[in-house]
């Protein structure tokens, strides 16, 4: 695997007495597409600003390529940022915007012109040199902001919710565009978003954050299939999170019924969180299934129906392609492999999870 390019070491940061990051430790590998994912206020943007040099940590150090850059100002760092609101210079043409960084570093005129052409081509906006910033749409402005950053050939591109202001269709197009750009440029992307779908689509590696703590780091598949706690499970996609008791290895009790699972090593009679994805819940005709309940609501979502079933005193969220009218008496079953068992939070770090906004 590639070497580590950035390391955030034991970073703490607070604003006006509110702790935003607490003893954060994170390494980012070269040429990776790393996404910091979390709800607003989780510290992801602060982490990015620490990398960019716009904030200094109260405690801890930032390492870049082995060197301590904690107190280096932004203009001396070898990374560039794409800002949430694009932050283009309104008094300059598109070409002047893109040339800004190159002019500062005193590149030759022909080099700058070549770079502008190359960058505009890369973001599919050839011929826009003379246009003014105002005359571009949000998506176009965002692509110029990306072009402006990448012409400086940074080793790392920091992106702060760059697609947040765009509409759904454009956002999806831009996601593919960003993946393509990353492949073509071969540089490290550090991407901040609160959109779990965006994170799952684009990333090599996702860092899920909440309340200043890292909850889980892993590939999109890991994060989705094996969430390490209830917060991650809930934040990444929809989930049924049910209080349960682990009776012994491979046997868990929820809502008064005992069902088999595949997890081991939780001890006996241990309270746990049981997480079941809505698409893993199977509906059947009673008396099949371990629980029986009634369909409370049904919404058509295009690919599937989103059904709410009240069973065992819990409102189950179910995704299914079959239509069940409201009031239908159904049985619920889940195959053991699709039942995830998680420890209840114990330490303070993990408690932050429970008091989250979700």
């Amino acid at each position: 695997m590639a070497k580590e390019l950035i390391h955030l070491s034991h970073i703490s940061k607070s604003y006006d007495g509110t702790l935003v990051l607490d003893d954060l430790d994170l390494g980012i590998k070269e040429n990776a597409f790393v996404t910091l994912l979390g709800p607003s206020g989780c510290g992801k943007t602060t982490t990015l600003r620490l990398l960019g040099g716009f904030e200094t940590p109260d405690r801890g150090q930032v390492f870049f390529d082995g060197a301590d850059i904690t107190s280096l100002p932004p203009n001396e760092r070898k990374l560039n940022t794409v800002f949430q609101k694009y932050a283009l210079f309104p008094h300059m043409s598109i070409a002047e915007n893109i040339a800004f960084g190159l002019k500062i570093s005193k590149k030759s005129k022909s080099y700058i012109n070549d770079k502008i052409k190359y960058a505009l081509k890369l973001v599919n906006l050839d011929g826009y040199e003379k246009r003014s910033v105002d005359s571009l749409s949000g998506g176009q402005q965002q692509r110029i902001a990306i072009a402006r950053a990448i012409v400086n050939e940074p080793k790392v591109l920091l992106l702060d919710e760059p697609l947040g202001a765009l509409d759904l269709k454009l956002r999806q197009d831009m996601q593919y565009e960003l993946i393509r750009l990353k492949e073509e440029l071969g540089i490290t992307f550090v991407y901040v978003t609160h959109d779990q779908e965006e994170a799952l689509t684009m990333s090599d590696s996702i860092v899920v954050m909440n309340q200043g703590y890292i909850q889980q780091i892993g590939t999109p598949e890991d994060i989705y299939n094996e969430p390490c706690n209830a917060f991650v499970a809930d934040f990444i996609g929809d989930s049924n999170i049910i209080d349960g008791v682990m009776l012994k290895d491979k046997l868990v009790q929820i809502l008064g019924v005992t069902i088999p699972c595949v997890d081991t090593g939780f001890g006996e009679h241990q309270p746990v969180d049981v997480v079941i994805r809505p698409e893993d819940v199977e509906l059947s005709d009673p008396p099949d299934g371990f629980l029986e309940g009634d369909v409370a609501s049904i919404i058509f979502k295009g690919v599937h129906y989103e059904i709410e079933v009240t069973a065992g005193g819990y409102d189950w969220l179910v995704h299914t392609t079959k239509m069940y009218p409201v009031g239908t008496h159904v049985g619920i079953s889940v195959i053991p492999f699709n039942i995830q068992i998680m420890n209840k939070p114990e330490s303070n770090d993990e408690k932050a999870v429970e008091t989250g906004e979700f």
Partner: protein
Amino acid sequence: MNFKCKFKRQFLSGPYMVWIVGFILLPILMILYYGLTDSAGSFTLQNITAITEPIHMKALLLSLKLALLCTAVCLILAYPLAMILNGLHLKRQSFVVFIFMLPMWMNLMLRILAWQLLLSNNGIFNTVLESLGLAKVQLLNTSSAVVFGMVYDFLPFMILPIYNSMSRIGSDVIDAAKDLGANTLQVFLKIILPLTVSGVISGIIMVFVPALTSFVISDLLGGGKVLLIGNVIEQEFMQSMDWNMGSGLSIVLMVFVIASMAFMNAHGNEEGGAAVW
């Protein structure tokens, strides 16, 4: 839209129309009439060409000189002030703006009269100088006193448009410039300065025009020794009772005002000033 409704709405602007016609349009027409006729009522350009008389020319040139000086001093004071103001914490910002605006709510005459007392030979400045064993300085009735009074009076009109245009620059734009490698000086020269040009231009108009036409300040702080074109016009009307001459010179002054505004407007839109008015 039905006709009746439209008519009624237009009716609402009636009082304002009366005001405009009666107190703005009519006086201007009267000034034009008086300025272009002699005392007998026949057409002449004599009142206009009277500006070339040495005494009038001297007053006009002095007015231009003092107004330019006042504008320059205001600009030099206001720009750094606006930057400091913009850098303050948001809560303190509005308070400091309030402090700057406070004097503007008091009557101009009152403020200038106060300065007249402060600068006089027995005023507080000379008293302090005397108690320190230094010689008294003639402060009142000098060109410097007039410029000082103008700067004191018009400074907020320079600060506010500059501050407005500065506060509209997003912090992420500044961050972006730094991110692209610009140091503090480069951020100032390439981002802040160009983006505040419109504010500077409105500030210049809003200080230069009233400074050029002022006569109360030069009257009170110049003590009749500093004769500005405004004072000359006032004397023509009030002392010589020569309305034709006064109007003729007013027209010349108006041309200067309009020309300076047109010049400035041609060099940038006036967005900064709109926020103040």
